Structure formats: structure tokens, C-alpha cells
């Protein structure tokens, strides 16, 4: 006799099992309809394989498992699918879920099904093959939780003990008892299959409570010559709890939060063993189960082999159900079962009992009294918890204390509520608290994520701010340097040449970049176009066959691609505008103009300025500004008079000799140089562009390859698409390389546009030189003052805007405005000093 350990705690409620074992397992006539929920197990709901109106055969797979933790569902009989919709399912919450409604045709026509070849033993098959058969037979734990059996039978750790749970400790339920009495041989065969799949554990134990001697006697002859041991232990609820049974049979405890497999144990229900035998030997899926129909509100108490999906009302109708005497309709036993609110709810794979309790059996519970901490609950608790303390903290929502008191080790067996003299629904308090704590934990994860996001954003902004500050600092230093240089240059008589050089340099810089930019933009446009094309195509295919969500995504992608293309085109247009129409002619004309024309122009410009200044004076409210403007106006007028004088004095036939030969020479020199440069670079772009294209393409190919490899490794469905993309890129690269070779051997035509940028920059520089050359020192100062004034005005407007918006840049703007003000004052002072 094998040693058994005592159950910790526990209670011994009236068994009430004798009522339903008087008659053998019965079979009911086919119901009018069967309702088969897609999710009768723990895990992902099965994926539908049939449609409304389909005729299905008995045992046909109606929905297949999706993902690892899932099992399929099968047609319990042949018939027609009449509906697939939300239907109330057996669940404590009374919720509805997607279910298939099947109208039986009464023919019981089986689908083709075979088990293992009878000439071989199941041991000739690999455990993996057998597991696959179990998975496709839709077998989920029949004990109550409904965990997919195939998953439970492929543990990650070595299994030393297989325990078959035949305890059936809940009062009233006799489904396993009757199954063992009548189908003992099949059960033992099933257990042997389970043992084989698990790699032949050292011990295989069938644990039975000692109140089922008939079942034990029925099993005994079949286990005699096997390594299977039958173990009886005292009847005490909840000995059939997985953790409790393990403790009773092995003396070991499943670690908190762990699985039995962690200590080398797998537990399977006796009904599951039977279902496994049917699946392996005959290829029959799980389409029926033994269910006890009991309770005093039913005239007949009996076990039936019930088709999955049979409405409970059908069961009750055949057992003389007295609606008026029924206080509660319970699915499962009186300790852990849940009440049903709708008798149309179907029997599912985990339905071991329908208890129609009479008013006498389950009277309406009296109101609960205060907890007197009598501790009877603690004595009954099989997990050695302190239910009275848990209740205390559950009432005050003290989650920390609840967790310290190991609330989550509560198996909700109901022993504490059963013994509570104050009628407190303790288990309900624990369920509610567990729910609260789980919800809080989820919310905490959410808020942690949000916080992390916020902190990252803050850090990024700070970084950006720092980068900006560094840039500002650099700009400031550059400005100071420039100032110092200008001061130095101011002493040199030939400063104008330097300016031209600098301008040339700048021009050279900006001249290469537009070409490059252009090339890049063109490439971008081409890419955007092709991308748009691809996504549009995809959208079309999805429109035909994809889900709504996919369509939505594709549409968004098309939008995005279009926007990008537009962006690229607009940028290109901007670039063209900036570089496309240079005003070289004007400048050249001006440079080459004779003194007369120069003077005439000067007069015209002076007149214009005077007009503008007058307007400004009229518009201005500021007294000091008015005064400054008036003095400027006077000077302009003096200048105008001078110019007119000079023009009058100019001989009519004066040859077009330059006024300031020196300056013009320098400028001409610079122009020559810049033009030479432009000419040199003008030839480059086509080749250069191509070269850059090649480099860019190579980079993209590299990336595409990496992606492809990754997709292949992850067995992604996009492998083909990626492959095609890579090939396209390679073609493009080949093209570009060929073109490049062609260009290298034969100089390309001059690209007109690319030269324009250079000439425009040159022209601008020349114009400035000319202006400077013709300007007196006083004029320069005056111009500085004007420009400073306008800048100051702009800065003030910006500052006002910033203040109105309470922008963070207010301070920096204010400093900038103040600086401008200082510089303006200085310039004005200089101007005043210059004028004796």
C-alpha cells in the first residue's frame, strides 16, 4: 500500500453522490439544435472552417486551433450549420461568445476518420505524432479548467510522475465515477498512451477518493499487469484540486506561481485519458462527454453521454425538471460551480455536472454577519491561508496586505465560505480583489510606459535645446570673428577684393550643392513614384480579398506615398526656382555700363529712396525714428543733387571708360575665375550625379539584403516581395553603372541649369562689389543704419508675437532685440560723428 499524505485543511460536505449512480450512463435523443462555442478551452478561440448553410458530417472539424494554446471544435453529429453568431456560453459572467449552431439531420453520418493502424501499437508512433492527433481531436482538460491537453502533455521538464485525477471530490458529481465503472479498459489504455507520450515516467498514479470503491474495483483488473498504481485516500474536499492531489499522493507541493511540471509531475483528468484513447485508437474527436444531471429539482438523477453543444434545457427536459422547485441552476458542483441564468446554454467540453438545486438544497443565502475571526476558515483552507485576514484586507482594499497574505495562492475552492458561521461570501471577496489587483497591475504597466515615453521625450528635447545652444554659440563666435576680420579689413584699402573672393568661395560651395540636391531630389521623386505605384497595386489586391483593417492600412500607405511624392516634387520646384533664373544679365549690364548710365541709375535709385523714406516718415509714430529718417532724407536729397550735378557736367561723348578701373578689374578677375570654376563643375554633374546614384543604390541594396535575410530567418510572408524589390534595385544599379561608364568615355553635354546657380552667386557678389565701390563711407554707414532698423523692427514684431504666445524663446528674442538696438545706436553715433 502506497503511503498517502493528509490533505491540509479541507471540509467534508454531504456527498450527495448516490442519487446519480443508480442508473448506468444514458444516451439522450438528438436535440433540435446544437450550439458549439468556438472557445471551450483556455487559450485562443478556434478559427472557423465552415460557413452558414454548410452541411457537416459527424466528427468534422468545424474550427481549427490557432496558435499553440488552442484546440479545435468538431461537429457532434451530422447536420447543417444554421447560424454562426454570438450566443450565451457557460461562463460565470454569463457572457456571450461566437458559437456555431448546428441543426442535426438525424443521420449521424460520420466523417472519414481513422485512428492508429491496428496492426501496430501506439508505441510505434512518435509522441509528437500522437500529440498532433490529440491536438486535432480538440481535447482540452475535461476536469474543469479546459486547458489544451496537447500543451500540458509537452512539458519542458522531465516528468517523473503522471497523476490521473480520479478524485472527483465535489459533492453531487459522479461523471468520472461512472466513466470508470463502465469504461475502465479504455481509460487504462488512455493512461498508457499518456504515459508513453510523457516519456514513461517512473510512477503513474491514479488517485481515487475512498468513496468510490466500485470504480476502483472496475479499474483494478486492467492495471494489474501494468506500472499503473491505483491509490485511494480519504474523502475530503478539495482533494481533487490539482495541487492538493499532488500533495496527497507525493507529499510535494507545486511552487507558488509554478506548474506541476516544475516538480516533474503532470496531472490529467480521468475523462481526458478516455478522450485520448478514443482519439488515438479510433481517430474520434472530442464530441461528447459524460455529464451528471442531478439535484432535487430533477426527478431523475443520472449520468449521460452528452453531445457537446446540447442545450442544458434539453438535458433538464428529459429528467423531469421542476422549474418551480429549482432555486439555482448550477454548472459544475456545489462548491466551485457557477450559476446559469439561461437554460439554453450548451454543454461544453468542461461541463461535468448540471446541478438543479431545489430550494431545500440551496436556500437563498441569509445576509452575512460580521466576521468574528473565529478562524474556522483558516482551519478549512487547503492552501494554509488566513481567509479571515484576507477578508479584512479585501474589505479595506488593502492590496499590499492581500498580496503579503498570498491572496493569489487561493484556489477559490470555497471551503472557507462553506464553513463560515457568519455566511460571508469570502471567495467572492477574493475574486473581486484579485480582479482589482490584476487591473491595477495592468494600469501600472501602462503608466510606467507612459512615464518612460515622457522622460525620453524630455531628454530628447533637452538634447535638441543643447544642440541649438551650441549652434548659437558657434554662430556668435563666427560673427565675432567676422567682425574682427571686418575691422582689420576696414584698414586695408583693397578690401573689396577679399569680399569678392569670399563670395566666390560661397558661390562655389552653393553651386555644387544645388546640382547635387537636384540629383538627389530627382532620385527621391523616382523612388516615391515607384513606391506609390507599388502601394496602389497592393491596395487593389487587398480590396479584392483583404480584411477591412488591411484595406484601411493599405489606403493609409497610398496616401502617405502620394504625400511624399508631392513633397519631393515641391522641393524640386523650389530648388528650380532658387537656381533657375539668375539675374546675371542685369548685373553684367550694370558693371559694364558707362558713367552716364551709372549716374542716371544712381539718380533714379536716390529718387526712389527719397520717396520710400518720405513714406516712412509719414507712417512712423516714433519721434526719434522720424528725426533719424528726416536727417537721412536730407542726405539723400543732397546726394541726388550731387548726382544730378555730376550728370550735367558729364560730357556728352565721354567714352565708356570705367569709373573705378581698379575695382572693376578685380571684379572682372573674380568673375573670370568663378566662370572658369563653374565651367569646370558644369561638366561634372552628370557623371557625378550618376556616381552618387550608384553609391546610394549600393547602400540601398545592402539594406534590402539585410532585410531579406531577416525576413528569411523569421519565415516572414514578405520574403518574396523583398526578393523582388532587391532584384529591381540590382537592375537599377546595373543601369546606373552602365550609364556612368558611357559618360566616363564620352563627355556629356553641358547642363545649362547647373551653371546658373554659380553665375547668379557671382552676379550677386559683383553687384555688391559694385555697390560698395560706388558708395562712400557715409553711405555705407547709412545703409547699415537702415538695415539695422529694419532688422530691429522685425525682431520687435517677433518678440511681441512670442510674448503673446508665451513662447519659451521670449528671453532670447529680447536679448537679440536689445543687441540690435545697441548696434543701431552705435551705427547712428558713428554716422553722426562722420558728419561734421
Amino acid at each position, binding site marked *: 500500500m502506497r503511503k498517502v499524505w493528509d490533505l491540509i485543511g479541507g471540509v467534508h460536505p454531504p456527498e450527495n453522490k448516490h442519487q446519480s449512480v443508480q442508473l448506468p450512463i444514458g444516451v439522450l435523443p438528438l436535440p433540435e439544435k446544437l450550439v458549439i462555442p468556438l472557445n471551450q478551452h483556455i487559450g485562443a478561440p478556434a478559427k472557423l472552417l465552415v460557413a452558414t448553410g454548410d452541411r457537416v458530417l459527424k466528427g468534422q472539424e468545424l474550427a481549427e486551433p490557432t496558435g499553440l494554446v488552442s484546440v479545435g471544435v468538431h461537429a457532434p453529429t451530422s447536420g447543417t450549420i444554421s447560424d454562426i453568431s454570438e450566443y450565451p456560453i457557460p461562463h460565470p459572467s454569463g457572457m456571450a461568445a461566437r458559437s456555431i449552431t448546428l441543426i442535426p439531420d438525424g443521420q449521424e453520418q460520420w466523417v472519414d476518420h481513422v485512428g492508429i493502424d491496428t496492426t501496430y501499437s501506439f508505441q510505434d508512433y512518435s509522441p509528437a505524432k500522437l500529440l498532433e492527433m490529440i491536438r486535432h481531436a480538440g481535447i482540452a482538460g475535461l476536469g474543469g479548467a479546459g486547458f489544451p491537453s496537447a500543451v500540458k502533455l509537452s512539458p519542458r521538464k522531465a516528468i517523473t510522475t503522471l497523476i490521473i485525477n480520479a478524485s472527483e471530490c465535489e459533492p453531487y458529481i459522479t461523471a468520472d465515477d461512472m466513466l470508470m465503472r463502465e469504461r475502465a479498459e479504455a481509460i487504462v489504455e488512455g493512461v498508457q498512451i499518456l504515459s508513453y507520450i510523457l516519456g514513461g515516467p517512473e510512477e503513474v498514479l491514479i488517485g481515487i477518493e475512498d468513496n468510490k470503491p466500485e470504480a476502483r474495483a472496475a479499474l483494478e483488473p486492467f492495471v494489474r499487469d501494468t506500472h499503473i498504481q491505483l491509490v485511494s485516500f480519504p474523502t475530503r474536499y478539495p482533494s481533487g484540486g490539482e495541487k492538493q492531489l499532488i500533495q496527497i499522493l507525493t507529499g510535494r507541493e*507545486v511552487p507558488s506561481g509554478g506548474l506541476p511540471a516544475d516538480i516533474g509531475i503532470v496531472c490529467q483528468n480521468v475523462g481526458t485519458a478516455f478522450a485520448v484513447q478514443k482519439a488515438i485508437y479510433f481517430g474520434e474527436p472530442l464530441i461528447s462527454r459524460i455529464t451528471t444531471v442531478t439535484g432535487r429539482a430533477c426527478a431523475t438523477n443520472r449520468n449521460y453521454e452528452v453531445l457537446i453543444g446540447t442545450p442544458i434545457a434539453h438535458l433538464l427536459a428529459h429528467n423531469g425538471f421542476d422549474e418551480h422547485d429549482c432555486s439555482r441552476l448550477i454548472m459544475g458542483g456545489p462548491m466551485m460551480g457557477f450559476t446559469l441564468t439561461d437554460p439554453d446554454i450548451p454543454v461544453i467540453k468542461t461541463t461535468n455536472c448540471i446541478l438543479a438545486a431545489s430550494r431545500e438544497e440551496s436556500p437563498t443565502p441569509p445576509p452575512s454577519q460580521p466576521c468574528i475571526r473565529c478562524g474556522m476558515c483558516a482551519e478549512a483552507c487547503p492552501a494554509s491561508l488566513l481567509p479571515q485576514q484576507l477578508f479584512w484586507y479585501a474589505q479595506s482594499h488593502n492590496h499590499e496586505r492581500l498580496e503579503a497574505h498570498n491572496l493569489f495562492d487561493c484556489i477559490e475552492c470555497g471551503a472557507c465560505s462553506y464553513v463560515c458561521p457568519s455566511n460571508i461570501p469570502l471567495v467572492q471577496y477574493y475574486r473581486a480583489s484579485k480582479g482589482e489587483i490584476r487591473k491595477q497591475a495592468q494600469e501600472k504597466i501602462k503608466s510606467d510606459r507612459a512615464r518612460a515615453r515622457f522622460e525620453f521625450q524630455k531628454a530628447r528635447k533637452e538634447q535638441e535645446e543643447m544642440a541649438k545652444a551650441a549652434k548659437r554659440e558657434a554662430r556668435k563666435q563666427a560673427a565675432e570673428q567676422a567682425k574682427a576680420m571686418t575691422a582689420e579689413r576696414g584698414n586695408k584699402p583693397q578690401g573689396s577684393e577679399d569680399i569678392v573672393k569670399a563670395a566666390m568661395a560661397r558661390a562655389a560651395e552653393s553651386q555644387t550643392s544645388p546640382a547635387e540636391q537636384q540629383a538627389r531630389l530627382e532620385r527621391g521623386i523616382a523612388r516615391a513614384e515607384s513606391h506609390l505605384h507599388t502601394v496602389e497595386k497592393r491596395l487593389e489586391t487587398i480590396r479584392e480579398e483583404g480584411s477591412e483593417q488591411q484595406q484601411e492600412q493599405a489606403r493609409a500607405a497610398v496616401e502617405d506615398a502620394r504625400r511624399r511624392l508631392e513633397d519631393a516634387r515641391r522641393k524640386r520646384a523650389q530648388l528650380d526656382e532658387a537656381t533657375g533664373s539668375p539675374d546675371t544679365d542685369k548685373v553684367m549690364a550694370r558693371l559694364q555700363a558707362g558713367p552716364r548710365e551709372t549716374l542716371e541709375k544712381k539718380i533714379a535709385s536716390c529718387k526712389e529712396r527719397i520717396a520710400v523714406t518720405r513714406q516712412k516718415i509719414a507712417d512712423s509714430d516714433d519721434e526719434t525714428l522720424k528725426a533719424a529718417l528726416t536727417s537721412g532724407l536730407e542726405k539723400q536729397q543732397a546726394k541726388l543733387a550731387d548726382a544730378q550735378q555730376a550728370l550735367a557736367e558729364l560730357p556728352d561723348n565721354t567714352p565708356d571708360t570705367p569709373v573705378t578701373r581698379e575695382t572693376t578689374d578685380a571684379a572682372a578677375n573674380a568673375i573670370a575665375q568663378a566662370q572658369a570654376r563653374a565651367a569646370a563643375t558644369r561638366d561634372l554633374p552628370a557623371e557625378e550625379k550618376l556616381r552618387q546614384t550608384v553609391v546610394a543604390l549600393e547602400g540601398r541594396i545592402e539594406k534590402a539584403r539585410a532585410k531579406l535575410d531577416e525576413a528569411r530567418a523569421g519565415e516572414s510572408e514578405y520574403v518574396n516581395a523583398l526578393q523582388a524589390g532587391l532584384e529591381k534595385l540590382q537592375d537599377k544599379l546595373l543601369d546606373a553603372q552602365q550609364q556612368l561608364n558611357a559618360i566616363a568615355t564620352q563627355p556629356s553635354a553641358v547642363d545649362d541649369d547647373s551653371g546658373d546657380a554659380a553665375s547668379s552667386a557671382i552676379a550677386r557678389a559683383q553687384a555688391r562689389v559694385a555697390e560698395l565701390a560706388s558708395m562712400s563711407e557715409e553711405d555705407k554707414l547709412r545703409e547699415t543704419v537702415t538695415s539695422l532698423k529694419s532688422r530691429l523692427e522685425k525682431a520687435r514684431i517677433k518678440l511681441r508675437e512670442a510674448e503673446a504666445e508665451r513662447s519659451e524663446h521670449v528671453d532670447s528674442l529680447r536679448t537679440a532685440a536689445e543687441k540690435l538696438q545697441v548696434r543701431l545706436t552705435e551705427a547712428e553715433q558713428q554716422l553722426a560723428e562722420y558728419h561734421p
Partner: protein
Amino acid sequence: MALLKITSPHAHTAQSTASVMRLVLLATIPGLIALTLFFGWGSLINILLAGSVAVFCEAAVMHLRKRPVMFYLGDNSALVTAVLLGLALPPLAPWWVVVIGTSFAILIAKHLYGGLGYNPFNPAMVGYVVLLISFPVQMTAWPAPLPLYAEGVSPPEFLASLQIVFGLPGVETVDAFTAATPLDTLRQNSGLLIAQLYEQDPLFSLARWAGAGWEWVNLGFLLGGCFLLYRRVFTWHGPVAMLASLSLCAALFYDGGSSASHGSPLMHLLSGGTMLGAFFILTDPVSSATSNRGRLIFGALIGVLIFIIRSWGSYPDAVAFAVLLMNFAAPLIDNYTLPRTYGHKKSRRATEKKE
């Protein structure tokens, strides 16, 4: 069909709080009989008086708190408090002592803290201690046990007892019947060996083990306690720990029965309120420690405190003080004595945040 939505479990024991309280009341009967046999009708009068005051107070409070009065009276908890206090008070104590003690126990010690299940201190013992401190004269006047009466003299009859309790004129006062208790005798003993004392003092010489009358009262309560243990109203941990630690202390300080001895373990077990305390007072679940391990500590420390206060204190008995002091400590004990939960390597602390 209208089907109720009730969560599991759907089965329930017939046991109720009221029936538990009824069992406790039932279990006091042997002790009460012994008290009545040896000390007259006083205890019964105490119980009746205290019981009616308690029920009245309870009903008044429930009415004030706007709760269903009959529902709460039905739990019998006020009655238990009253009976325990009535048993602890000296028989033939004046009526106003009983009334003050009971109303204090119910109104202040129980309902001011939130009523049944929320009181941190044992209400009966709070009532007892309040009386002992306020009215030491009345509280130390114990009638002599029956064997000590001279030939031909008998304790007062029921009516006479009522007259004494209510202070009606025409009968002798209680002083005429009082005598020292075994604990008093032992404390006042300064020159005699224990053996001599047992020989000379009729209180001991007329007794079988530990003190005339007292030993039977304690045995009565022990019997009742065993009945409650058998009915699983409480666990053995608290009472056994208390009795064991009290005996151990007594044995340690027995001093071979010298004149400085504090009495034998048997004398301590069967004197004063030892058994009443062990099985009826410290087993009050509301104010005691929660876990079995906690109750062991709780009971053991009460035993030690009883011995200390009896031996070196100046009160006639120590159960009430010891219990109240340990009521203070119960939450602390609870914090460190959580049972080891299934699947855990060791027990946790109640205030622990993470395992």
C-alpha cells in the same frame, strides 16, 4: 425562468455565529453549576442581571446605529460577554457593580470600536478591570466556599441573595460571608511552608487538590472547554499554551514548597480564573491572535503574565490583566506568525511588500 446569480460555493454548513455563541453559553454550565454549589446563587444572579443589561445596551446601540435590532441581537454575542463577566465577578456583588461593568463592556469596549468583530480588547475583561480598579472593595469580597461554613450555617438562599445584591434592608451584608481565596491566602502567607499551610488552612485542608470549591469551579470550566474543543469552536493552541506556560512558571518558582513559594502548578491551574480564562476568555477570536502559531505565542505569554501578576502583583487575580495586555500584542504577533502557504518555502510577514 428566473434563475438567481449566486457565486460559489452553493453549499453551506448549518453552523452560524449564533449557534457558535450558543455552544459557548452551553459550555459554561458545568462551571456555573460548580460556582452555584460552592458559592451560592450569586453567580447566577450576576449572569441574569448582566445578561439583561447587555441585551438592553446592545439593542439600544443598534437602534442608535440604525441597524436591524433583532438581527444583531440574534448573534448572541452580547449574551456571551455578559455571561463571562457575570461568571468572573464575585458572587453577591452589588447590582450596580454588575450594571456598570456590563454596560461599560458593551457600550465602550465593544460598540465604541465598531461592534462585533471590531473590538481590539475582550469586552468582558475590560468591564472586569474597570470594576476592579474603580471598586476594589466590592470586587475582592468573595463569599466563602461551602465547605468552610460552620456546622448548621448555610450560604444565603436565592431570595436572601437577591436582597444582598440589591442592598435591601433586613439581611446581613455580604461581608458576613466573605473569606480569602486560595490565591489571597498564598500571597499573604509569610512564615509557613506550603505543606504546613495546606495542613492548617481549612481552605486547603478541606480540599482535594488545590482549594475548597475553587478546584471544582475550575474543573467545571475545564470540562466546558473540552466540550468546545471537541465541537471545534476553537483550536487547542491558545488554552494549552497558556496552561502549559503557567504550570511551567509555577514549577520553576515552586521553590520546593518553602515559605517563599508561589504555589504548586496544580494550585495555579485550579485556582482563580485560570480555566475560565484559558477556555473562555483568551479564546475570544476577535481579540486574540489569528494563526495557530500566533495563538501558541499569545496563550503562552498570557500564562507567563498571569503567573507574574499573581505572584508579584497586588491584585487578587491576574487573568483579566494578562489577557488585556496580550490583546495589545495580538496584531504584532499576527504580523510575524503567518502560516506557510502551500507552495511557499517559508511563511511571510503580514507587512512584507515583496517576497
